[in-house]
């Protein structure tokens, strides 16, 4: 769930049509407390083209909330980071299933997983335990082989 960040000079709200409801209470709070904000609901991917420009124009103290489906959140987050935002300058919330990449420790093959704890590697057939060991370089989690 999102939390309201005190002491920011401006909020940026970015959401797809699914993400709107997660942000309502934050918008209300920003209104009550007279904090500046910008608000964008994206219906289609093509509407996101101005985002880079929009992000790069923000001043220090801007804080970003992103809400929507997984691929939407990921795209917007990447653009924000490219524009100079850090993980400390934003919060994001994903609606719907979260797919993540899992790398097989044996063959380095990439598997798609959502909420499973164990999967069979589609490349080499090893049974893998899904871990929370995460690589930013590979944007993937590590799948361990266990001894039975």
């Amino acid at each position, binding site marked *: 769930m999102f939390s309201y960040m005190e002491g920011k000079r401006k909020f940026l709200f970015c959401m797809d049509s699914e993400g709107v409801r997660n942000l309502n209470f934050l918008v209300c709070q920003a209104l009550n407390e007279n904090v500046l904000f910008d608000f964008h609901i994206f219906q289609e991917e093509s509407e996101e083209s101005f985002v880079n420009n929009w992000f790069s124009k923000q001043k220090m103290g801007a804080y970003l909330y992103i809400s929507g489906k997984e691929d939407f959140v990921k795209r917007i987050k990447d653009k924000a980071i490219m524009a100079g935002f850090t993980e400390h300058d934003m919060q994001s919330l994903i609606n719907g299933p979260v797919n993540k990449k899992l790398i097989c*420790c044996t063959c380095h093959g990439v598997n798609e997983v959502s909420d499973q704890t164990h999967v069979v590697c589609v490349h080499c057939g*090893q049974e893998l335990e899904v871990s929370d060991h995460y*690589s*930013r370089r590979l944007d993937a989690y590590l799948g*361990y082989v266990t*001894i039975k």
Partner: protein
Amino acid sequence: MVSVEDIGSFPYPFGEHDVYRYSNNAIPLNPPIAIEVTESYIEEMNMKRELLKKHHERCYHSESHTMDAQWETLDLILHQLAEYYPENFKLITNDDHWIFTNLQTGEKQSFTFGDHETLDMEPLDFAGRHVQEDLILMMQRDGDLFLDAAQLCFPANWSLFFDAGMSFKEIHKPIPGFQSESLDDRILQFLMRIEAGNPWWRKNWSLMAGNRLDTSLETFAEWGQARKKVTNENVGEFVHLRVEVQKLFRLPKSNGILFTIHSHMIPLEKFIQHTPWLEQFSAILHELPEFIADYKGISMYCEVVLEYLEKELEKR
């Protein structure tokens, strides 16, 4: 594949206490030598080079910004080999024109120092093929250390391919209890304060079923099975104490940290010949918390080892 050592030269990993916990047990390294050539040199060079040939992706990784630190590492390693083992290695430096001779492998390489084109592999990869140590380069930036280059042939159950590029804390996240009391942060702060000219070292240990040096995570499915094959009959010869001698050198120009790991192995039956070692190791293993035994991969056969150590103690 057997690469076991003589008890006389084995690096005993425990301190004065009969209790083992994760800690920063690094002490100043004196004399300041990053590498050690042992009797199994040729055997281990052959193993390393075979692994690098067949599995370069899992044994070597480098980011392009590590090139200066790689040359500094090569400088340090080749000079130390020639200085401390002059009967085995020669180094002639004439300005930037260097000639390195490894008399044990019968290799001679001339190259221009700092010129990548004159070596047929990266400097870190070259240096690593002449020492038994695994070589890891941690680069410092933004108040953190990152694993940005390494030649790693004998990992203790981790993956360079996966961990490459990670920060110190990201790498150590899978270790249970490593974050408690901010141990991870305190060790990171310690590492970042290491100064050029004042290297440190520590020893780490684990038990393993079998005697493989190349216990990569990639091959765990093969060697991990051996844990199920430990019995009362074979435990003494089959289970090995594995000790990593780890050394930390600050590289003055690039500000990177060179982390060398020399892995040693000895079968339990040989290790416990020395009674004080048997006594202390037995006490430590008895007291070892489950989460550490689990992480070190000992749990499956720990009881068999404890019984064996107790029986041996009774005989003394």
